[in-house]
């Protein structure tokens, strides 16, 4: 396939203020209007976006040395425990951690009003957070106890490091049982009362680069309102899944481990959330630019909700018991219509991923690139992928 441009050429155009950027939504109508070939020649970059609960998230903090010095071995922030089994004043606060005093599901379904993600949100909001630490004391670190209020400004390094974000496609969750169930996919009413899904579909980063041709280790991204990077393939990254002809996975597949400076982020794109009866999670906003290196990349980014399919999974039995099995497939176009058919029944749908926020992020990233505030990166190393013979439906005029 003929290469249309390199990332270096795109960055030169960004520097000159001549770059042509559109969102993954806008590119669809451009292709419909003027065809693939012309659009591929015209557009340099397509921006994507997603904003949804991503449980596998958290932040590293260096809390700074006290006088006398302390090797913090047990640390809580607003009562939420952070992992301190690393160097003296380094800790990792996981998004889903809850305070020891939280009744959790002993009072079922638990409310889970506050946890690690909320602490991170509070810090990003500039609020004071109570730091409590204890230590066994050593010759070099004699202090044994510390209690003080801190803000994000008091913390030396604070960076989000999320082991698994941006799931490339996901299950549609339903409940076949006769009681309401409380899951990380939200409240699922009995007897197929509702179907919850969680993906930005046609705007989602990895669904616009389904074979990881441009997104790789080192890729610069929009993360939580600031700039971040792809650190590694995310946990559970699995490219070996059934795909449609255009290369798009028919269920969960690739994931990304993301890293970024928490001090640049905003609560607009990083929020603590509570799932009734399940626990705490964090809504993370991510946007990734996709360079249109050739016509194939343009075709990938022009994917529509009607061409992306997700499996319907029963979260009362098949998912928790790990027995697998899908109740069928639906497209994101159907999901977004507000109802789908499952086992002959009309079932109302709800997204857990915010499409308006995803659009906002793609627009914001577009604006950053146009202004020259954000340049594109060549991946340092590729993500694990598969050889897949991509075929596209003809959509040229």
């Amino acid at each position, binding site marked *: 396939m003929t290469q249309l441009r390199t990332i270096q050429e795109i960055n030169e155009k960004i520097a000159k203020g001549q770059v042509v950027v559109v969102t993954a939504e806008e590119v669809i109508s451009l292709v419909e209007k003027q065809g693939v070939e012309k659009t591929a020649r015209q557009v340099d970059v397509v921006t994507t976006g997603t904003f949804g609960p991503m449980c596998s998230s958290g932040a590293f903090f260096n809390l700074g040395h006290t006088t006398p010095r302390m090797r913090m071995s047990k640390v809580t922030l607003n009562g939420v425990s952070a992992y301190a089994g690393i160097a003296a004043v380094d800790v990792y606060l996981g998004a889903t951690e809850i305070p020891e005093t939280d009744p959790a599901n002993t009072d079922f379904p638990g409310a889970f009003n506050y946890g690690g993600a909320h602490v991170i949100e509070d810090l990003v909001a500039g609020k004071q957070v109570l730091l409590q630490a204890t230590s066994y004391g050593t010759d070099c670190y004699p202090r044994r106890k510390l209690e003080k209020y801190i803000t994000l400004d008091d913390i030396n390094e604070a960076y989000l490091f999320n082991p698994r974000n941006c799931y490339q496609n996901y299950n549609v969750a339903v409940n076949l049982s006769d009681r309401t169930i409380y899951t990380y996919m939200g409240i699922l009413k009995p007897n197929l009362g509702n179907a919850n899904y969680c993906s930005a579909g046609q705007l989602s980063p990895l669904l616009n680069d389904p074979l990881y041709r441009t997104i790789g280790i080192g890729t610069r991204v929009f993360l939580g309102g600031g700039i971040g990077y792809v650190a590694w393939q995310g946990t559970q990254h699995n490219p070996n899944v059934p795909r449609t002809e255009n290369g798009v996975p028919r269920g969960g597949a690739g994931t990304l481990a993301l890293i970024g400076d928490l001090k640049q982020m905003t609560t607009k794109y990083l*929020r603590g*959330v*509570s799932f009734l009866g399940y626990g705490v999670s964090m809504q993370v906003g991510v946007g990734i630019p996709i360079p249109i290196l050739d016509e194939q990349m343009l075709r990938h980014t022009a994917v529509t909700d009607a061409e992306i399919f997700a499996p319907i999974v029963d979260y009362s039995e098949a998912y928790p018991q790990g027995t697998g099995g899908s109740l069928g497939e639906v497209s994101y176009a159907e999901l977004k219509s507000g109802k789908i058919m499952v086992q002959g029944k009309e079932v109302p749908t*709800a*997204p857990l991923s915010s499409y*308006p926020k995803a659009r906002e992020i793609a627009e914001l990233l577009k604006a950053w690139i146009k202004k020259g505030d954000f340049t594109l990166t060549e991946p340092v190393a590729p993500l694990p992928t598969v050889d897949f013979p991509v075929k596209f439906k003809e959509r040229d005029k």
Partner: protein
Amino acid sequence: MIKRKVVLHFPASVVEQPFIYTLAKEYNVVANILKANINPRKEGRMVVELSADDKDFNTAMDFLHARGVQVLPLEQQIVWVEERCTQCGACTVICPSNALWMKRPEMTVSFCSEKCIVCERCLKACPARAVEALYLSGD
């Protein structure tokens, strides 16, 4: 004819009195109870649709006030805090009256307070906790 959905607040001291009976018998008020949380010797709360002739309705209100029962307009009881809402839509399949609903294809969440029946299910179904009940936050 007046027909209005209201929230009745009963102080603990009067909660055991038969208000619905009196409203019907003395004031010709039809009370359609949508939700009630009434316990002996505790402050009680009832979401109710009241309908009656204008005159009866107003004297019934005077009766309730005189007994210390607060009558609050229903639509101001549940508040959707738009700034906190992240537009995820989780509430929209839980809300039984479509007061919280999704505008399509924009996929934005909206709240129509006239449709709200104060069932409170959204309070905990909202992951971002963007829905508040005024009578609860004041407690």
